[in-house]
């Protein structure tokens, strides 16, 4: 293949790892975000405090420091995880902490009357949350979730520093082997950009899908 496309096969191999970590991290992040976001709204202090501690801990420190800590320091405490697990779990928990605030904010933004009306109709608290509040809040969560997904994609570049052969890692390998820095990094930036565009277009499509029927009034 003509330059610079001869570099593509090696880079696409790295891109696959990047996509795997993004997908795995997104799953972890979604779980963490809903668990911690809902826990923040709990009436019990014993549920609220651990959620708040998790959110502050992961939002207050640097993602790279978290990765290094889990990869280099955690084994010294007897917990040894492979690099892939560390990457998915740590990046997922990191983005999940930001997502938790999105979940909490979106649920709190649903008008209080919706909750009161559900209770008046003899819904239990759980039913009110699951059938009335969450479905409405979900729509408000989508745009910030899309942004977070792109943040997650970008943060996967950090895993190259804990030896995982993602797109950025492959770029560094190729740079060492060929010294064609400009072509390599231009291609890599372009690949990340394309994936990010796909994500943001996809999320916008999803937003439109979920807005169907909304114009018929407030009732879902």
């Amino acid at each position, binding site marked *: 293949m003509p330059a610079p496309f001869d570099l593509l096969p090696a880079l696409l191999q790295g891109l696959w790892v990047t996509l795997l970590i993004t997908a795995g991290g997104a799953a972890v992040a979604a779980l963490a975000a809903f668990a911690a976001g809902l826990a923040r709204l709990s009436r019990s202090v014993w549920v609220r405090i651990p959620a708040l501690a998790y959110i502050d801990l992961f939002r207050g420190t640097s993602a790279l420091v978290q990765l290094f800590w889990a990869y280099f320091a955690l084994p010294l*405490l007897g917990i040894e995880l492979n690099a892939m697990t560390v990457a998915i779990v740590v990046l997922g928990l990191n983005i999940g902490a930001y997502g938790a605030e999105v979940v909490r904010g979106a649920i709190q933004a649903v008008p209080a009357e919706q909750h009161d009306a559900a209770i008046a109709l003899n819904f239990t608290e759980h039913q009110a949350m699951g059938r009335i509040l969450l479905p409405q809040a979900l729509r408000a969560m989508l745009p910030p979730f899309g942004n977070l997904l792109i943040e997650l994609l970008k943060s996967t570049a950090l895993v190259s520093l804990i030896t995982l052969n993602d797109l950025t890692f492959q770029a560094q390998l190729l740079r060492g082997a060929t010294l064609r820095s400009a072509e390599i990094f231009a291609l890599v930036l372009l690949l990340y950009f394309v994936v990010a565009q796909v994500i943001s277009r996809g999320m916008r499509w999803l937003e439109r899908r979920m807005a169907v029927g909304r114009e018929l009034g407030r009732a879902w």
Partner: protein
Amino acid sequence: MIWDWDFSLEILPDLLRALLVTVEATVLGMALALVLGLVWAIARRARHRLISLPTYWVVEFIRSTPLLVQIYFLFFVLPDAGIRLSPLTAGVVALGLHYSAYTAEVYRAGIDGVPRGQWEAALALDMSPWHLWRAVILPQAIPPVIPALGNYLVAMFKDTPLLAAITVLELLQTAKLIGAETFRYLEPLTLVGVLFLAISLLASRFVYVLEARFGRGQ
């Protein structure tokens, strides 16, 4: 292996010195981001699509590619063009450039918040564009978004460890070196985490103060 307090105290001065580099990179990077973001935000509103459209895509591109790759790009590719930057300079420029894409968005929100009548009044008074921006729009657009800018300052502070990848001796790189020399990673890495947490939490409180002082609707 358990926590060693003596060792922790011994390495603390080195880490605090490294913290100065981290703070220096953050302050310089933020200064660049504040200026460049404003340039993007104003260029985005240019009447000529030849200016506004490329600005949109440049900002979109910077925002949707990883900071780490941008750091590598500046550090490894620019020398090919004859521009040789020190690791710290390359890191600061990359931080500033990356976050300018975010500050541009913040400024945009601030500018959009200025009532239309202000633009029309300036137009009616036949103000020059320079005078319009400096005397009418920016003084109203910027104060309400200062808390949001503060949030990005905190975010940038937490991204400075990425400079370790191009050997800048900031907090994380220093902790890594200590770990490599002594084979003890637990204390240096944990201390770095604690330092980041302490400063970020303090800084977030500071942003709350800004919010109370400048926030919208006061």
